[in-house]
């Protein structure tokens, strides 16, 4: 079996599972946020059970419309706080957490080999730590709150072996964008995507999270990286009990895949997904005539400390071009605090970027930093669909923190390596 099959077999009490088989699985952790949680709470109440199945295995995180941007949002937050209190569920409130997909791994809620479902499509991010994690809707989250169980079809798997070293200013974001460009937006529909190879082994948890995060943009059910020493180091300081061995959590040599891709990142250039689909991918160097009005660095895809460090490296001593708004949003309070300590916030503010509190921000067009018609934004987030970040007549380009930072300086989409050349 491959690693995803092994986790699903364990979760459903079986020794073997096959792609296409429907299993009734026990969930180890379920998450909902402020935009999916309220419907889940309503559905839970209609199911007619008094108590959740296990209050220690449910987490609610306020991250989308925070701090509350309207009375409506405030009421929804109030409702979630009340539910969490009644059921004694852990809720990460405004200022205590940040973006759900950053908070879950950071606070030790994601362990290798576990089955995690979340009422958010980017729940697949947690595969970076060797969990089987997938997105569900609100009603299904309510059903899990009540029963702890979910039916899942065992997915077919695609394996992506990656080798080679990234060039300077080329990042895991560029890798996943190039993969989505190859696989297309529907190419991994219903499937599991497993990342392996020397490049992945040498990659930080942050980079692996960026990869797994965007597997849903090619339709995947989950993205996953076999846990290793990097995973162990990340988790050791975040959980209070000893970490179980996860030696068996790797794909067998005879595991089956519907497709195996062999990639080499050595020659990979900075990549950009152009409007208005994530698989419309081109090298940044080919887009240098595209002017921008907004640059956004943040989100569950690229709002981690490593991302901010990279952006700061480029913005240090430079100015955000007149006519461009640069918005920086650390993915969590922990990232925010670390960025402060490292002096990154000073670099951003000195450059003329605005730094906002940890939340999803402009990524989904629900709160701050929305776009007007005819405007263009280059963003480190994960979706560039029509209307995603505001007006249906705005354009969104997706890129790495390095490309977005470089573009903020020049006012047009810019290969970050171009700035290096002009310096020398």
């Amino acid at each position, binding site marked *: 079996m491959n690693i995803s099959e092994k986790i699903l077999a364990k979760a459903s009490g079986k020794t073997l599972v096959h792609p296409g088989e*429907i299993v009734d699985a026990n969930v180890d952790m379920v998450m909902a946020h402020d*935009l*999916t949680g*309220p*419907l889940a709470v*309503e*559905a839970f109440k*209609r*199911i*007619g*059970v008094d108590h959740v199945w296990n209050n220690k295995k449910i987490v609610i995180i306020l991250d*989308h*419309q925070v701090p509350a941007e*309207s009375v*409506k*949002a405030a009421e*929804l937050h109030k409702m979630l706080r009340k539910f969490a209190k009644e059921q004694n569920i852990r809720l990460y409130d405004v200022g205590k957490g940040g973006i759900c997909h950053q908070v879950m791994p950071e606070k030790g809620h994601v362990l290798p080999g576990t089955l995690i479902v979340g*009422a*958010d*499509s980017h*729940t697949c991010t947690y595969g970076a730590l060797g969990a089987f994690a997938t*997105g*569900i*809707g*609100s*009603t*299904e989250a*309510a*059903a899990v709150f*009540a*029963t702890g169980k979910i*039916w899942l079809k065992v997915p077919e798997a695609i394996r992506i072996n990656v080798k080679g070293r990234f060039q300077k200013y080329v990042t895991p974001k560029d890798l996943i964008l190039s993969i989505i460009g190859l696989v297309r*937006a*529907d190419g991994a*529909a*219903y499937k599991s995507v497993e990342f392996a190879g020397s490049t992945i082994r040498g990659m930080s948890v942050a980079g692996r999270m960026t990869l797994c995060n965007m597997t*849903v943009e090619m*339709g995947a*059910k989950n993205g996953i990286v076999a846990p290793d020493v990097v995973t162990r180091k990340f988790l050791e300081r975040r959980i209070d009990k000893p970490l179980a061995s996860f030696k068996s959590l790797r794909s067998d040599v005879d595991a089956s895949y519907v497709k195996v891709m062999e990639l080499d990142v050595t020659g990979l250039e900075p990549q950009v997904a152009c409007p208005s*689909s994530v698989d419309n991918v081109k090298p940044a160097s080919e887009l240098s005539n595209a002017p921008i009005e907004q640059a956004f660095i943040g989100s569950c895809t690229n709002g981690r400390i490593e991302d901010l460090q990279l952006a700061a490296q480029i913005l240090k001593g430079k100015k955000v071009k007149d006519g461009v708004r640069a918005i920086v949003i650390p993915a969590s309070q922990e990232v925010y605090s670390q960025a402060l300590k490292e002096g990154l916030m000073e670099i951003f503010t000195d450059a003329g970027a605005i730094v906002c509190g940890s939340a999803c921000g402009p990524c*989904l*067009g*629900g709160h701050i930093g*929305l776009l007007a018609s005819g405007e263009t934004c280059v963003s480190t987030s994960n*979706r560039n*669909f*029509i*209307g*995603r970040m505001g007006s*249906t007549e705005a354009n969104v380009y997706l890129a790495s923190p390095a490309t977005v930072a470089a573009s903020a300086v020049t006012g047009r989409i810019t290969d970050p390596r171009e700035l290096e050349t002009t310096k020398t």
Partner: protein
Amino acid sequence: MKVKGVAIKFGDNVDTDVILPGKYLVLMDPKDLAKHAMAGLDPDFPEKAQKGVIVVGGKNFGCGSSREQAPLALKYAGVQCVVAEFFARIFFRNAINIGLPVIECRGISAAVETGDEVSVDFEAGEVLNLTKGQTLRGTKLPPFILEILSDGGLVENLRRRLSKR
């Protein structure tokens, strides 16, 4: 379970941001959501859907965000079911869970035009274009999913199953 209605056809990769833009996610009443169904593609859609239409989609229908508000908006706007080449998995589950029937049917995009009268037999897994007199074979839903749909959604299904215990 059978459904009949006039088709409104969309293309490939219809995402949940165009089905229901993020700014409307704070609306809790499905009737309010329905007013913005398909806002990203056709602002007149809610008016057209009122009569009880069948949405025909291409590949990867409902991709993107897990927002259940997307199928809810379609259902309350008057959509009776969605037939697509294939669905994004979260949308597929969400639709079933809120009681909006969905069926995969390869070849549907080429076989149906907006305005055609279409009927769907979910038990048989058959889609009929009554206007053109053509029958297409869809993917049959497993019995437990048909049961969720005939109960009206997952909440109702769970209520029934839990009360039997």
